[in-house]
């Protein structure tokens, strides 16, 4: 039984257990829809009030918003084990139980939770993508489709990587959730708008530290036919790798933290 298969088996079981409480499940899914719908409303209001933001037309703004929603909530859907409450795994001693099984810890953490309620947020994101690309009259090509798939996939890795920072902190029993939230949830809120509308310090943070701009905005701008900073098209396929790089670094840091955990005990 390989890891991927194990993951999907776990998913199936978790879904089953969530559906043990169907009423609560549907209410919460609905609540998520309202919440993410509200976020989208903010974009609609901006479009309505200002018409455009810099070079970005209303359709472009919907598209950026959609890219972020789909990416972020796909991560929360499938990676809830990491994006959820990792520190409670540590505090409750559940992490010890994971160490007692012959599998990688991160694999098991990922297998330990999903959040199917996010499906409504993803739906809002998809709607925004469809509306946005329609309004901006995007000329779809195979390359553009590939760029979008790559961007979202590596964006998921980026978000996972950012949440791993929080996991590492909680392993070292340091409370600094707010600081990390600024990167994760803050990054999601800020970078649902194109990066070049922000002042320089924020642009730096979301390009270098939490590279949402490289992973999501460069490809999105390419798809919209308005390359960010006038960069050549091929960069849309290269810069998203920043997301994978961040994940790789955080994965290594996480493994180190687990070694620390096992030597300090709980």
């Amino acid at each position: 039984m390989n890891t991927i298969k194990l993951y999907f088996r776990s998913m199936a079981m978790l879904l089953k257990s969530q559906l043990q409480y169907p009423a609560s499940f549907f209410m919460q899914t609905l609540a998520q829809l309202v919440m993410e719908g509200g976020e989208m409303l903010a974009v609609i209001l901006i479009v309505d009030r200002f018409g455009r933001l810099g070079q970005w037309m209303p359709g472009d703004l919907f598209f950026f918003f959609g890219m972020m929603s789909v990416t972020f909530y796909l991560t929360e859907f499938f990676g809830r084990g990491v994006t959820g409450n990792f520190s409670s795994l540590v505090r409750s001693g559940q992490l010890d139980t994971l160490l007692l099984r012959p599998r990688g810890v991160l694999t098991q953490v990922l297998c330990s939770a999903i959040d199917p309620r996010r499906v409504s947020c993803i739906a809002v994101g998809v709607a925004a993508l469809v509306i946005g690309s329609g309004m901006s009259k995007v000329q779809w090509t195979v390359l553009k489709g590939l760029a979008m798939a790559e961007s979202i996939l590596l964006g998921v890795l980026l978000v996972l990587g950012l949440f791993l920072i929080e996991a590492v902190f909680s392993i070292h029993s340091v409370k600094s959730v707010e600081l990390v939230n600024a990167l994760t949830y803050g990054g999601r809120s800020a970078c649902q708008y194109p990066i070049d509308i922000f002042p320089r310090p924020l642009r730096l943070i979301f390009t270098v530290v939490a590279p949402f701009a490289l992973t999501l905005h460069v490809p999105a701008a390419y798809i919209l036919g308005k390359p960010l900073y006038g960069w050549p098209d091929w960069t849309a396929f290269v810069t998203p790798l920043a997301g994978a790089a961040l994940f790789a670094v955080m994965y290594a840091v996480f493994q180190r933290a687990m070694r620390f955990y096992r030597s300090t005990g709980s």
Partner: protein
Amino acid sequence: MSYIAVEGLNKTFAVRKKRQGRLLREKTLVRALQDVSFSIERGELVGYIGPNGAGKSTTVKILSGILTPDGGQVNVGGRVPWKERKDHVRRIGVVFGQRSQLWWDVPILDSFSLLRDIYRVPEGEYRARLARLTDALQLEDFLRTPLRLLSLGQRMRAELCGSLLHGPELLFLDEPTIGLDAVSKLALRDFLKEENERNGTTILLTTHDMEDIAALCPRVMVLGHGKKLYDGALPQLLSRYDTLRQLTVRYEAETSLPPLPESCAVSREGADWKITYAPAALPTSQLLSLLQSAGPIRELTAQPQNIDHLIAAMYREMDL
């Protein structure tokens, strides 16, 4: 070499105290284990006792590969647990009485099949083992019930089944009978004995329930303040502390007791006199004739000391 060989094991924890100044937090070092050595042969059933905080769980965590010790050698079945964690945990099972390993909201059968996937147990092997365990632990009736709907006793049996599905050669049990009623407790003990004798599973049992130890473990290790204080058979351990007996006497008519030696402790409950004495200082026959001199005796019961009292006396003497 022994199946489990532990040599000079040391573990120190840094415990953070509450922040007192602005920045510096004081750290105190707690020596959880100090030069603990022992060896356990394949197929042994060993009880591991000691007061709370003695270092029992730390030992189990090190032996199961969750913790890295600060010093000392550990070898379990030819492997160093924390260095070859995945290879090691494949061969062991762990049951924590207070913590569940199964999934809360799904039928336990689903939990079991996920465990099968996690441990990569071949289907045939899994089926055979599940059938045997279901039968031995009487799980048949609630295999399709979610864990959260089970009683504590049923849940513990399900946990045991889950920890044995991959056929571990070594089983750690941390207070498996905590909170169980008498019937469940007895059934669990029978099962453990059977598992140990029939399948040769080595078992290390941590508990505060001395009845568990007395019923199951030919060998017991006592840990206190991170040091091993005793390693051997339970009766020998207890004989040192088992020095007192209690007699309960009821007379035909209301009488006062004759004067007894000062070493006897006397108390009265209704019509019963309770006399605690040390047979080594005052032979029982002597006490009896003293008691009989006071009048005709209607009832007389003699009791050994409760095993928990003995353990308490031992902990007191060892200054734990």
